[in-house]
């Protein structure tokens, strides 16, 4: 590399590629290079650098994926798996009351979110890791089997998109990052329950309904600008014995621990889902920490010529399964946004009533109070849009339009809630003493993240 191109600034460190350096800039760049030089270290001017080990808290360190357990093959590849029944509504009655079962579930999950997730959220965000105890407790309340039909060891008689939405909302109110970490395995299980063959269900689902639930991740997002989930750059090509996968997936929750991935890839131009066990050769994982949702230990998943069998395709190869998966995942993100938005509203409400300025609570000022009012209004609209999409998904109706509308609201208004929440606390909102800065970072995930969770 020539010196000139070496000192060309564009394209790195967030500098646009059109930038150029003037003489002062060149001088400063040279000084900076010197300051980073190992020469300083050799003469003992600086502490030795840390050893380069894999960590999810920093990008750039790559490692192999974890060795998966042996998923014992069972069942018939040719047979369709068990399918949950579409939920039945009562003769098309408009109703905002959750069913008794859903309400009971929400009560349990709310308690878990309040007592387990919220207290652990700050540290988990720092560490980019969900504590073991939090993950264990999520198994006790049955999160991984929530979306599975009874016949394969789950708890739902009917399609549970509504219950899943309410649960994701309740978890999101606790903490979005931990919610994603705890929902990730169940999302993969739900996907297998919805679209798996008998063989896929009998091979993989026993692990999720047992005591030692594996980490698992739905990997759809890719590291490209203007990413379109329906047109993945990851390519699946047919081989004599199955498929070869090539590409990179980003923002994959707990990729370093996951034993099973559902990966989105383009097969002959059509987006398709593939089941990939973590021990597959050619898989590697890299820390991919992001602005928020950090407790979910986000990673990049590299697929370098990963070979999977004929039976690795999950669902249809005509794109319909993939599209439904994307929609159900967006629905889950909407629910998470509603939960986090509610957390924000519940936090700023007492704050603005107790914080005083100019001799009275700031809540007594319209500019502050109206901000809170707008949070409440838009949050409720987000919730209703999400519930409408969920209700249609649960009853087997087309919900592509409804989930798109919900996602638009949860992306835009959800971020506005994050923005206003921090603003209402002023400087206090900007420091980590209060959780609002974390919610601000988390709410930006909605509209960006594809996959990872699903209801």
């Amino acid at each position, binding site marked *: 590399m020539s010196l000139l191109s070496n000192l060309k600034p564009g394209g790195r460190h967030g500098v646009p590629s059109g930038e150029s350096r003037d003489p002062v800039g060149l001088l400063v760049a040279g000084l900076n290079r010197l300051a980073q030089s190992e020469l300083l270290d050799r003469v003992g001017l600086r502490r030795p650098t840390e050893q380069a080990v894999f960590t999810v808290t920093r990008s750039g360190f790559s490692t192999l994926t974890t060795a998966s357990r042996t998923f014992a093959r069972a069942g018939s590849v040719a047979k369709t798996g068990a399918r949950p029944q579409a939920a039945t509504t009562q003769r098309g*009655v408009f109703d905002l009351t959750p069913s008794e079962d859903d309400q009971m579930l929400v009560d349990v999950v709310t308690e878990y979110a309040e007592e387990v997730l919220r207290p652990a959220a700050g540290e988990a965000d720092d560490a980019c890791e969900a504590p073991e105890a939090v993950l264990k407790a999520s198994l006790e309340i049955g999160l991984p089997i929530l979306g599975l039909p009874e016949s394969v060891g789950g708890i739902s008689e009917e399609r549970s998109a509504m219950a899943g939405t309410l649960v994701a909302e309740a978890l999101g109110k606790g903490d979005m990052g931990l919610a994603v970490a705890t929902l990730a395995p169940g999302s993969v299980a739900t996907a297998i329950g919805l679209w798996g063959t008998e063989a896929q269900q009998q091979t993989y689902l026993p692990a999720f309904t047992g005591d030692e639930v594996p980490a698992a991740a739905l990997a759809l997002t890719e590291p490209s600008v203007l990413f379109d989930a329906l047109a993945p750059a990851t390519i699946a090509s047919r081989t004599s014995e199955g498929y070869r996968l090539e590409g990179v997936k980003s923002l994959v929750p707990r990729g370093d621990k996951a034993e099973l991935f559902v990966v989105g890839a383009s097969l002959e131009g059509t987006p398709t889902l593939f089941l990939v066990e973590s021990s597959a050769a050619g898989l590697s994982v890299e820390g991919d920490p992001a602005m928020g949702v950090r407790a979910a230990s986000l990673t990049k998943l590299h697929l370098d010529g990963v070979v999977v069998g004929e039976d690795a395709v999950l669902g249809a190869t005509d794109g319909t399964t993939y599209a439904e998966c994307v929609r159900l995942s967006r629905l889950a993100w909407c629910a998470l946004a509603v939960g986090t938005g509610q957390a924000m509203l519940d936090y700023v409400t007492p704050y603005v009533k107790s914080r005083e300025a100019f001799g009275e609570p700031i809540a007594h000022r319209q500019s502050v109070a109206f901000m809170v*009012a707008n949070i409440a*209004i838009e949050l409720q609209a987000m919730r209703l849009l999400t519930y409408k999409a969920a209700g249609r998904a649960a009853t087997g109706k087309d919900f*592509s339009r409804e989930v798109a509308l919900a996602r638009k609201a949860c992306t835009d208004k959800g971020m506005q809630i994050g923005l206003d929440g921090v603003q209402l606390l002023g400087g206090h909102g900007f420091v980590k003493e209060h959780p609002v800065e974390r919610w601000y970072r988390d709410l930006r995930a909605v509209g960006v993240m594809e996959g990872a969770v699903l209801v």
Partner: protein
Amino acid sequence: MINLDDPKKFKPLVGQAHQVAMNMLRPISRKYDHGEHEYPQELDMLAAMVDGLSESGASGGAGASGVRRDEGGAEEKTPTGTKNGANLASVMSITEMCWGDVGLLLSMPRQGLGNSAIASVADAEQSERFAGVWAGMAITEPGVGSDSANIKTTARLDGDEYVINGEKIYVTAGGRADHIVVWASLDRDLGRAAIKSFVVPKGTPGMRVDRLEHKLGIRASDTATIIFEDCRVPAANLLGSPEVDTKQGFAGAMATFDNTRPLVAAMAVGCARASLDLTRDLLAKAGVEVDYDRPAVVQSAAAAKLLQMESDWEGAYLLMLQAAWMADNRQPNSLEASMAKAKAGRVGSDITLSCVELAGSVGYSEAELLEKWARDSKILDIFEGTQQIQQLIVARRVLGLSSGELK
């Protein structure tokens, strides 16, 4: 079980209202926008039809009818006890009618806001006596808008009559209605608790329509200034209790708004959908269609805007249905009614104005109705409580603050 799809049982009602809007209101929409203050005689026949329908029980509340909390029992409940009743029917049919034309809906004989007030608070004798009237609502005064507790019009008891004095402005259908429900204070020293409403028949000496306004939009609807000079009405025309209960305060009078705000939200939702439906169609002909599965950022700016508007619209629509559903199920809905009106009001403006922009000169020209809807929508973020008043109500409720604390 949660289900936010439109109630099935109102499908025929909504379909009927849609046909009326399309085939009766739209064809005369521009005519009465131009001919401000001309009486839309076509509506007489329509009103007769609506009356016939409500007598046969088929309408389910097709107009701006008031809604009582205590009527109960009329609609069947589902096994879980959820009711889809008259409130839902009203907002849904008003949405359709305003998809046709807001100004004409407001001019529907015997469907005035005063009728809502009568239906909401009249006793049995009054309900019977005022059945079939067309009543406008007179609250606003030249010096009093949003702070309606501050009105200066007075009603003094003299024998078995009240003597009303004052000036009222912005009385919707005030010129055409045959009755006016007027807000007046029994004693201005006793504050808001002394404010009562009175039904005044047209032709009562001392009440006169002074003038009609020329307006930005809803020109088909007449907006009157009404002067009361020693206007005498029977004491029996006072709606509600004549007692000045300082404890109950203003709540009684304001309760009417809990019922009418979802209706105004419905007007905004209907008007906005008219713009959205036409713009979607015009854009589709120009080759722009929203792909709901693809990210907005990879679609055209017009498609992205359409998606955002549709999302906002649906949010407003669902908040409106929620407020009505709560009323149907006798849940207090003051907060939700204000949420619905706030969201619908601002979304209505954004959508109708943005649709003009998207459609360019086609949208701005009188050759299409887009420019008209962009004028009509503005009032819906003002009357029955402005955007700011709704935010105030929502903020007080959410924050648990009194009107003294959050002014």
